[in-house]
């Protein structure tokens, strides 16, 4: 293998997925390199969540290949994909309500790794990830008592606890204020730097993503319509038309300016 191909963690080749007659993904090609931060954007119903479901093994593609570390992973059940190193944060967090915050994360430590640590070490690990996402002091609470944001953070901590090489994040930002978004952006950056995790980040809110990611992939009606640096995407007429609508160029331009100066 060439050094360049070793750099590639995930590769989707011509992935197609239908629900009945509806084509939700059409020959999607996608590459994620080690340690990179990639934004996946697209309008409602574009197929973003479906693509993440196919990658994480919750759905099987109708055709095409999904490779992780050079290994074909379609056909593998989701738990096996997790153990290979793909962590997943759901759009709407689904935690284990009968377990405490710490136990929710502990599940990830004990079952999401190929070599789970011993009991005491596992508990420490769980707390470590709770601290990383800023939930220290909450570890004994029942997750039912948490607010939506805290639930998302528990879900994130649980995904990180499986020690992924790549993290799939689905709309972490929906319904947040700008200040809160800033917090999440910082958090994801820190995760990537501290843990060296590559992140494929689905987001609706363009402002959140464009200043942060290395590369943007735009999905529309199940097909990749553009791919490139945030600056390129902001200029792409197809994207502007298909996804952003009229008047978006100015808004985008302003944000790129902001991102560039920070």
């Amino acid at each position, binding site marked *: 293998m060439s050094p360049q191909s070793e750099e590639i963690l995930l590769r989707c080749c011509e992935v197609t997925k239908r629900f009945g007659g509806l084509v939700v993904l059409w020959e999607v090609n996608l590459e994620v390199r080690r340690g990179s931060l990639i934004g996946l954007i697209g309008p409602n119903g574009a197929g973003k969540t479906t693509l993440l479901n196919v990658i994480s093994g919750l759905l099987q593609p109708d055709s095409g290949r999904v490779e992780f570390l050079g290994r074909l992973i379609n056909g593998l059940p989701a738990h096996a994909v997790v153990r290979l190193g793909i962590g997943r944060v759901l759009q709407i967090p689904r935690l284990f309500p009968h377990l405490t915050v710490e136990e929710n994360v502990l599940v990830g430590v*004990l079952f999401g790794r190929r070599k789970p640590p011993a009991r005491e070490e596992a508990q420490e690990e769980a707390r470590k990830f709770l601290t990383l996402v800023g939930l220290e002091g909450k570890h004994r609470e029942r997750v039912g008592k948490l607010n939506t944001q805290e639930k998302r953070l528990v879900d994130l901590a*649980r995904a990180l606890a499986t020690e992924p090489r790549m993290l799939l994040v689905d709309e972490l930002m929906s319904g947040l204020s700008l200040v809160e978004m800033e917090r999440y952006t910082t958090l994801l950056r820190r995760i990537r730097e501290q843990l060296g995790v590559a992140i494929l980040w689905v987001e609706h809110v363009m402002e959140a993503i464009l200043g942060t990611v290395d590369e943007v992939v735009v999905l529309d009606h199940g097909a990749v319509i553009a791919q490139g640096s945030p600056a390129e995407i902001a200029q792409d007429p197809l994207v502007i038309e298909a996804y952003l609508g009229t008047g978006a160029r100015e808004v985008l331009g302003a944000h790129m300016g902001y991102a560039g100066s920070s």
Partner: protein
Amino acid sequence: MNARPVLSHMLPVLGTGIALAAVPLFVRESGYVLRIATFLLMLATYAVGFNLLFGHTRQLFLCIGVLAGTGAYGSVLLVRNAGLNPVAAIAVAVAIATGLGAFLSYVGVRRGFGVLFVGIVTLAVSLIFQNLVLGLRKYTNGETGIVTQGLGVGLAENPVQAYYILLAVLVAALAVYQEIMGSRHGLALHALSDDEVSAELSGIDVARYKVGVAALAAGFISLVGALFADWNGFISPSLFSVGHVDIPVLIVLLLGGMRTLLGPVVGAIVFTIVDAIVRPFGQLTVLAYGVLLVALFLVFREGTVTLLQRGWEMVQSSTQRGQVGRGVAADEDGDPLSQRTNSRAKSPY
């Protein structure tokens, strides 16, 4: 942090065993009460299995009677028609039922059946079993049934011995349950009963747990079924029907408390008492069961044990609040599980 005697999590199991072991000392040896108490042990063991199936892996097996019946008919026919010795016959019958349980679970998992669909399919399995026993009249005598005297290990002749053997089976089932729940597998079972998708995404092999649990539960249930055949001296298909086994077991588990160690035992005790009261009303008991089941599902899904635990926790926390500063100290012992409800408190994970 988790410094505790290695076997302390078995104390509730041991306590239950000792308490129930005292029963024959207080009742007449060949009396009606001992019979009822023995039946209670069987019901509780069925419920332990059903708790694993329904409580922990969301598999609504409405074929507990089939699994018990496989143990019963299997062991009896293997002795009567194949000439096996009773112990070997029981072992083979239990193995067959275990395979059946695992197979039914596997089909459900593979085909992605939801809770209700598993319920419907297993209900159909129950009907098939009834018809199978009736159809194989040549071997089973159909609804006339089989007199099992001399075909088993002789439980019918020794009621006290039978009581203790069935108590041993119940205690073994409770011990296995507690051991699983105290291990990392217990955490996996709690997680997957809460949310299967999240469990998968956390690396838990949900399918394997479901099939494994079904096999284990079927093993215990069919063992009790085989012992029942011997103890009762007679078997007929209606003794293993949904109305005779599954509905009572469902009521027992809901009454006692799903996902708890002692729920099945407490539920069986309460149910047995209620049953003794409504029994004189004959046909009406079915109606009473139905009403009870609906009421349980609507207002009492948590069960007695969970309710008692909650009450106990409230009492504890209010006394703790009375003592200034103690709450903090308790927080700092670092064990996130120490405040847990009893059934789970002993899990080291």
